[in-house]
């Protein structure tokens, strides 16, 4: 039962990532693209958690935690660059 749920969830997250990629390619402004990248990171964290449940392994949660940290830092650094023209002043 959990395997079927993981399969459906993987397909759903793939569709969500495609919608996010549409906004990433289309976005009229740089800020839209930054937001799309952030949402893509969120989708990827969900995918990693689902794959960890599917393979019955707790090893994937470290990967998800690292991905969350890198995604947060990327978004904040890009926004800071747009705001002040510099990342670390």
């Amino acid at each position, binding site marked *: 039962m959990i395997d079927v749920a993981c399969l459906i969830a993987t397909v759903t997250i793939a569709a969500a990532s495609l919608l996010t990629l549409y*906004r990433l390619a289309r976005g009229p402004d740089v800020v839209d693209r930054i937001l799309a990248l952030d949402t893509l990171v969120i*989708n990827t964290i969900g995918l990693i958690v689902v794959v960890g*449940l599917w393979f*019955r392994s707790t090893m994937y*949660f470290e990967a998800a935690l690292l991905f*969350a*940290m890198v995604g947060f830092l990327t978004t*904040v650094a890009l926004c800071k660059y747009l705001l002040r023209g510099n990342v670390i002043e």
Partner: protein
Amino acid sequence: MIIAEAAVAAIILIGAFFLLVGSLGLAKLPDLMRRLHAPTKATTLGIGSMLIASMLYFAIIEGKPSIHELLITLFLFLTAPVTAQMVAKAYILRTRQLHEVLPGTGRPVGWATLDAAQADACSETVQHTTID
């Protein structure tokens, strides 16, 4: 045991549904301030449901509870508002027609996003050092 499996499967499906809703909102909504609203649902409800499902699975069915999921949840819930605020500030700075619409701050200093140098000069937290 079958009830626990059904609950875990249902919570996984709920999480996947909210991730799809967040991305659909990002793709469909008309401007950035409204688009910013949708992915926060994906973060809190989507990822939150997924992590609750995996906590239930490893604690009840496998019998070895883990706290990594709580760490991920805590980190995401702490960083999501910071991300949203930075994106909104960058959008305010880059959109010219918003600058006339914004209301006054009611203080001698204007919006910190728009006049960063003026706000820095009037800030109580910045220590000014004089050079002899």
